[in-house]
């Protein structure tokens, strides 16, 4: 356990230091959301209606783009070799890295949501609903994105390939995340149903992600 704690602490520390990417994700989120009204027009009623969808798309892209270096950095400097040889199961080490990434890059997105909600003319209750669905849904994005990040290491390619691999996998999360937010804001659907499915998706990805990532790292040894 202390090994996993050490890994989580190290990854968060690196993300917050100079050269770390934790806050760039939030900045990207902010920029994507600010761009939307220029394409859609500044009609506040329209923005309010599309707000949850815009916030979810922004969070999806932001959490995906920061995942790029999740394993690549450790691979490039040889840390991954040492992690593979440790007594900690690789699945747990992968889960710890993803958790650290979510804490450093995912949680700031949720914290930024109220500000962005204001820009998109969402009222307090709607913003809270979107933030709650992001809180439940972003772990799923990180833990499924992790699979793509592990594949990117073994293929020695990152960036766009990762996006192409992972975006289709995140469609269910997007569907139920936006559906739950909209249900909370406008109805007529109940909030509970899509939100429960969203939580289920997150829980499932907490299990599937680490195993798939570890398998991909093990088979991609070189």
């Amino acid at each position, binding site marked *: 356990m202390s090994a996993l704690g050490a890994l989580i602490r190290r990854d968060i520390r690196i993300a917050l230091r100079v050269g770390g990417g934790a806050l760039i994700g939030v900045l990207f989120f902010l920029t994507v959301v*600010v761009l939307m009204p*220029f394409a859609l*027009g*500044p009609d506040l009623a329209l923005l309010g209606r599309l707000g949850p969808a815009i916030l979810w798309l922004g969070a999806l892209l932001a959490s995906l783009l920061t995942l790029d270096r999740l394993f690549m950095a450790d691979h490039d400097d040889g840390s991954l070799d040492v992690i593979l040889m440790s007594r900690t199961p690789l699945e747990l080490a992968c889960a710890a890295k993803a958790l650290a990434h979510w804490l450093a890059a995912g949680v700031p997105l949720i914290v930024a949501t109220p500000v962005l909600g*204001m820009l998109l003319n969402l009222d307090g209750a709607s913003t809270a609903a979107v933030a709650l669905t992001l809180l439940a849904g972003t772990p799923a994005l990180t833990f499924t994105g992790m699979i793509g990040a592990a594949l990117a290491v073994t293929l020695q390619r990152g960036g766009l390939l990762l996006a192409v691999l992972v975006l289709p996998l995140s469609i269910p999360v997007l569907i139920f995340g936006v559906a739950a937010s909209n249900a909370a804001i406008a109805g007529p659907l109940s909030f509970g149903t899509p939100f429960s499915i969203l939580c289920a998706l997150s829980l499932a990805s907490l299990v599937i992600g680490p195993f798939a990532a570890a398998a991909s790292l093990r088979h991609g040894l070189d």
Partner: protein
Amino acid sequence: MTLSDLANPTRFLSLTTRILPWLAGATAILLAIGLTQSVLAPDDYQQGATVKIMFIHVPNAWLSMFVWGVMSIASLGTLVWRHPLADVAAKAAAPIGAAFTFLALVTGSLWGRPMWGTYWEWDARLTSVLILFLMYLGLIALWRAVEDPSRAARAAAILTLVGAINIPIIKFSVDWWNTLHQPASVMKMGGPSLDRAFLIPLLVMAVAFSLLFVTLHLAAMRNEILRRRLRALQMLQASQRPALP
């Protein structure tokens, strides 16, 4: 005292040690006068007391652009004249500029609240300020992305100058985009036709905030110089040959 004297970081440090207290004092006095005058200024017949947000908002908005100008000149100093303090000045200015821009955004949104009924409206002026804020944040992220400040300096200088060329284009585009959707901007400010009762406190506040910027900027530059010295000392320490065990 010439520019080349100022180029020497040690002389810069000793000079600023002497003038910073005076600058800080002058800033405090002017801010006190400006704030008093702002409070005493009459209410607007339409906007009531909310018009007084203007005395904070306008200086911040003006500084948000002015600081980018300062950074642009510093960037030229980095790229063209290779002035040793230029990138220190550019780096130190970015967070201060971002802070002024943020204050301009917050006060603008508070000012708009009674008129719009919401805290945020995609008004042409405010939207431009928001984009400027994003550009500041991007610039700060660029400075933070690279550990070696001299390597980050040239990249940041190019980005700053590109930004300086782009900001008017962005401003124009946003204005055009905005008029496309709504004919008149809600926030109107008469330039020279502003009443004397408002104009004088506004000018005092503008000068006070400019002085505040100069004070903060010089202090931040000192910090940056000291930070770089610390870094150089640490690298020196790292390269020491240790006593063999």
